[in-house]
């Protein structure tokens, strides 16, 4: 299995290379002198020169590009322009929070979305179907920050069930969970919407397939027809949508973290945006893109597990 992952990652190298190149040049099309942008108009020429020197801005672009690739190959994402701390270290310290939030919403999305989608498809226009439609409409309509703000107003300001600031200070497990609850629900509803929608439409087409008729002709009980024969096939598109939506999930988790004042990558990126800390932004983009490329590789591999046609074709 590890060998498979390694081999598939090798196939993704051109994409990764493209990603790195794109990020590099994107950050360098900044109009004006980055050093001036960072330090401001009042900075002394000496300070500007020092910063240029430190950033390597006085070297030719291609040399900068080569340096950038080399350091990334060594796992070095550079240093923040504002704090001068290694970007990698800053990110690693908050990464657990972001991963915790992402995983929680993924679990909520799958546990909520799959059964809801299945039940909606089995009985079209039934209660579950209407519920599914409403949930997916809500989940897809709320921008993550809008739903976050509304959840805060409702559950943290009006009814004080959950903390307004979801930064757990103590190591208490219950406290941690309470802090996680609102952000995870905020993101989870969006995931439920995506998963429900894919599951529902996948089930609708699966239930019309010939093999479902064959299963019924064999006398397989209705429940087993739905949950074994049809759902097994529907898991394939569900896996895809979860994999493809990692980007959406990341974007929304950034927003959620900001709204709920939760530590995580979201906070770093917003700080970097506001202080024009391009070094950090560049590092963040590289990490996000890597995460998505790896997620796509993993999705392909899960495909192989769920769909025998892929493995043995």
């Amino acid at each position, binding site marked *: 299995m590890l060998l498979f992952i390694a081999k598939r990652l090798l196939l993704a190298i051109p994409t990764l290379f493209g990603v790195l190149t794109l990020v590099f040049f994107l950050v360098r099309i900044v109009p004006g002198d980055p050093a001036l942008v960072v330090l401001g108009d009042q900075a002394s020429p000496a300070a500007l020169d020092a910063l240029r020197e430190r950033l390597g801005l006085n070297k030719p672009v291609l040399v900068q590009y080569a340096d950038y690739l080399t350091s990334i190959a060594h796992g070095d994402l550079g240093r923040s322009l504002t704090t001068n701390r290694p970007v990698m270290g800053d990110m690693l310290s908050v990464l657990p929070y972001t991963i915790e939030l992402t995983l929680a919403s993924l679990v909520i999305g799958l546990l909520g979305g799959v059964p809801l989608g299945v039940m909606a498809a089995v009985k079209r226009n039934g209660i579950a179907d209407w519920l599914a439609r409403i949930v997916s409409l809500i989940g897809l309509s709320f921008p993550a920050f809008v739903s976050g703000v509304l959840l805060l107003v409702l559950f943290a300001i009006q009814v004080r069930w959950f903390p307004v600031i979801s930064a757990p200070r103590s190591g208490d497990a219950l406290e941690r969970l309470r802090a996680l609850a609102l952000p995870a629900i905020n993101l989870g509803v969006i995931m439920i919407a995506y998963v429900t929608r894919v599951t529902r439409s996948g089930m609708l087409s699966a239930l019309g397939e010939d093999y479902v008729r*064959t299963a019924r002709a064999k006398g397989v009980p209705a429940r087993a027809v739905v949950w074994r*024969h049809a759902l097994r096939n529907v898991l394939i598109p569900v896996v895809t949508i979860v994999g493809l939506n990692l980007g959406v999930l990341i974007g929304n988790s950034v927003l959620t973290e900001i709204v709920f004042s939760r530590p995580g990558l979201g906070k770093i990126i917003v700080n970097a945006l506001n202080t024009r800390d391009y070094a950090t932004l560049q590092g963040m983009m590289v990490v996000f893109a890597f995460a998505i490329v790896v997620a796509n590789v993993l999705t392909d591999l899960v495909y192989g597990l769920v769909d025998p046609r892929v493995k043995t074709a």
Partner: protein
Amino acid sequence: MSAASPALSVDTLTTEIRSRGTWYQAVRAVSFQVHARETVALVGESGCGKSLTALSIMGLLPLGVGRIAGGAIALDGEAVSGRSDAQMEKIRGNRIGMVFQEPMTSLNPVLSVGFQIAEPLIYHRGLSRRAAEARAIELMHLVRIPSAAERVGAYPHQFSGGMRQRVMIALALACAPKVLIADEPTTALDVTIQAQVLALIAGLQKSADLAVLLITHNLGVVASVADRVLVMYGGDVVESAAVRDLFARPTHPYTSALLAAMPRADRSSAVIAPIPGQVPTLADMPAGCRFQSRCPLREERCAQRPSLTAIDAAGTHQVRCWVRGGASS
């Protein structure tokens, strides 16, 4: 009931399907019996109601789209029509097996063939999964799938079309039903593979005393394997006869036209006679004889529906036609 009762008996079965809120009769009072070791063929062009007849027997009409509006179905003399879906689950795959047209899509792509063959044994015979899959290997031998023991864990896409259809036959016969319904079982296959599959069904039929209901559009297949034939058009049985009688004396204008329209591989045929027009949609079906809009022999009385009447002394060759239907008027 007595030992002589037919394995499958269908009595004045009427099935309706819905289109744009209106229910239309797509199978009209169809009756026939299939005895053990006998093959009865339902033959006709698309939309004639032959597949709906099979789905009606199986209780697999799509909910809200198809419904049985009348008639009775019996297995071994025991009435099974009117049963709930839960009760039919115990009959399907257990007392009737069914094979479908498309072996490519009729097997579940993500389950192993061994499990798919074993499944009826698990549900109907209460076998453990392990025991049922062991039996599945024997069934794969029975349908002559080479190296069954190695391929029991394989998936449908790893089999050729012909082999997949053998898998379908194996799972349909897993619980040793007395009746097999084969709905266009060889239509999707090449002719050389079609011959193999038909031979396999015929062989299994002999060894297991199967009653086979064969649904096909191919009169050549009918001639090769059927004992009795029912020709259907627009939901009506228009002619019913022993296979030799039908080909020796095709009587209904539709039957004879169908034979005349068929180009043959075994003789030089410079002329074929097309049937003019096309099958009307159910909404546009004429009242009375449904073939009248394309029939060269049409008369005024065809506006009334003719009955299925015998044209021979034994009463086994029946035709639904005012003009050709003997002394029925």
